[in-house]
C-alpha cells in the first residue's frame, strides 16, 4: 500500500512536471538552441572536406561540451526553486508523500525533459550536417553514440543542478557559474584538474565509443568503466543530497 502510494505520487509528479518543462515557456529555449545548432552545423557541413571527423568534432564541442550542461542548467536550476518562489509547490508539500520521494518526482521529469530536449538538438544538428553528405552506417553509429552520451549527461547534470536549486536561494547564478566557469573552463584545462568536471567523464565515455574526430584520439581520457562509475556515483550523491536537503527544507 505504502509503495503503491509512493509510486502513484512519483508518477503523477513526473507526468505533470515533464509536461510543464517540455511544453512550458522553456520550450522556446530548446527551439532557439536547435535553430542555432542547425545553422552552425548546416553551414559547417556545406564547407567541410572531411565530414565524419569535422561532424564528430562539432557534435563533441557544440552539443556535448557546450549545450549539454547549459540546457540541464536552464531546466534544472529553476524547477523546484520556481515552485518554491511562486508557492505552487504547496500541493506537493501538503501531499501525503515523503518529501524525499517528491524530490524523485522532480528529478525524473527533469532528466527526461533534458534528455528529450538534448535528443532533439542533437538530431537537428546531425541532420543539418550529415544530411548534406549522405548518411551511412558510420554516421548513424556516430549519431546513436552521441544520443547515448547526451541522455547519460542529462541524468547526471539534472541530479547536480536540481540539488543546487534546493541548496541555494539564487540557483541560477550558481548554475551559470558551474556550467560556464567550472564545466566550460576548468573542464577544459590540461592536467588532472579537468577530472573534477562531469564533462571529463562524459567525454571519456565518448572517447571509448566514438571512432572519429578529436574525441577518439583524446589522450587524457579516463577508462570507460571508471568514467561510468564516477558518473553513476556523482548522480547518486547529488540525488541523495538533494532529497535530504528538500526533506529538511522549511517551505516558509
Amino acid at each position, binding site marked *: 500500500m505504502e509503495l*503503491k*502510494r509512493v509510486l*502513484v*505520487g512519483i*508518477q*503523477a*509528479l513526473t507526468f*505533470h512536471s515533464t509536461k*510543464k518543462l517540455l511544453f*512550458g515557456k522553456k520550450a522556446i529555449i530548446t527551439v532557439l538552441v536547435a535553430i542555432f545548432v542547425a545553422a552552425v552545423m548546416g553551414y559547417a557541413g556545406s564547407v567541410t572536406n572531411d565530414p565524419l571527423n569535422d561532424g564528430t568534432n562539432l557534435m563533441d564541442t557544440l552539443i556535448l561540451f557546450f549545450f549539454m550542461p547549459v540546457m540541464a542548467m536552464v531546466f534544472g536550476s529553476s524547477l523546484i526553486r520556481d515552485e518554491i518562489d*511562486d*508557492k*505552487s509547490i*504547496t*500541493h*506537493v*508539500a*501538503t*501531499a*501525503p*508523500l*515523503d*518529501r524525499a520521494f517528491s524530490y524523485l518526482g522532480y528529478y525524473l521529469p527533469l532528466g527526461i525533459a533534458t534528455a528529450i530536449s538534448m535528443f532533439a538538438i542533437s538530431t537537428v544538428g546531425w541532420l543539418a550536417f550529415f544530411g548534406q553528405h549522405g548518411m551511412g552506417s558510420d554516421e548513424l553509429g556516430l549519431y546513436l553514440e552521441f544520443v547515448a552520451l547526451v541522455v547519460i549527461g542529462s541524468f547526471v547534470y539534472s541530479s547536480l543542478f536540481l540539488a543546487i536549486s534546493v541548496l541555494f536561494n539564487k540557483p541560477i547564478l550558481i548554475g551559470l557559474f558551474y556550467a560556464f566557469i567550472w564545466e566550460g573552463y576548468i573542464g577544459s584545462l590540461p592536467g588532472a584538474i579537468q577530472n573534477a568536471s562531469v564533462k571529463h567523464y562524459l567525454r571519456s565515455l565518448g572517447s571509448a565509443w566514438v571512432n572519429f574526430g578529436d574525441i577518439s584520439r583524446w589522450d587524457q581520457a579516463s577508462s570507460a568503466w571508471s568514467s561510468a562509475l564516477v558518473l553513476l556515483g556523482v548522480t547518486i550523491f547529488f540525488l541523495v543530497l538533494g532529497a535530504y536537503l528538500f*526533506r529538511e527544507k*522549511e*517551505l*516558509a
Partner: protein
Amino acid sequence: MTSQENGPMPIVQAQALSKWYGQVIGLNGFALRVMPGITGIVGPNGSGKSTFFKLVLGLIKPNVGSITVLGKVPWKNADLHSSIGFCPDYESLPADSTGREYLTLIGKLHMMHGTDLSKRIQETVRLVEMDKAIDRKTGGYSKGMKQRMKIAGALLHDPKLLILDEPLSGTDPLVRKDIIDLIKRLNMDHGHDIIVSSHVLFEIERMTHSVALVYRGRAVASGDISEIRNLMDRHPHNIIIEGEGITALAKILLGQDYVVSVAFNDSKDSVTVQVSKPDVFFNGLPALIDQARCSVSKMYSLDDNLEAVFRYLVGR
C-alpha cells in the same frame, strides 16, 4: 474555547509555540487549543496566522514549543496530510493547467485514480459550484473562481480537517456570501472540522462563534465570540464627534454611566469621547443630540480597526 478534561480531543494543540525567521518573529509563545467544528482565527495582516497554519501543516518547524494536529506532530509527517486539506491565501494554482488537470494531480498525489478519482472530482467541483469551468485554464479564472478551485483541491481527498487561510480575501460580496455558506455546509452537512482565518472579525462571526484572536504572534484571546465581544466592551472605545454646540453635548455625555471620559480636541467644536459600551452609546446618541440641541457634522471611531482592538487586548 476551554474544554473539559473528559470532553472531545482538541484537533490542534499548540503550547508555548515560537517561530522566528532571522530577526523577524512569526509566533511568540503561542498557545491555543482548537476543538472540533469551525474555528475562526482572526488577526491583522502579519499577526502570525499564516505562520501558525504553516506549523499546523508541517511546512516549517517550531523553534520552541510544541504543536500537535489530530494528535500527531506535523513536522516531517507526510502521512498526516491524508487527513488535512489546505487552501492557501496566495495564488497556488498552476496557471497553465485546467481545473481538471490540477485536481487530477492533487488526487493522484493522494493516491486516488481511475473512475474513483473522476467521480470524486465531479462531486467536489459540483460542491464548490465550479463544474462548468473545470476544463478551463486556471490562469483565466476570476479571484472567486480561484478561491473555489483551491477549496476544491483542499476538499478532494475528503480530509477530516480543512484549513482555509483567508478564503474570502479579495472576493466581492456575492462570492463572499457563497463561500461563507459553503464553509458552513462543509461543516454541518459533510462533517469537516474547519479552521478558517480572516482579518475581519464580522466575516468570521458569520461562520462561527468559536474564535481565536491572534496579534503580534500570540493568541491574545480565544473562546466564544460573545466572550470576546464582552472583553472588547470592557476596554474604552474612542469616538471623535465634531459639529456646532458640541460643548452642551459633552456636558450631557459626562453624565452617562457608559462614558469614561470626554476631552476637547484642538477646538471647542471637536471632542473625543471614551465609552465602555459602544453599542449603548451609538443607540442613545440621537436622543442626546436632540437634548443638547447641537448639530453633529462628523463622527468617527478611532477604534474601528482590528489593530486598535488588539492593542486594547494586549494592554498597549
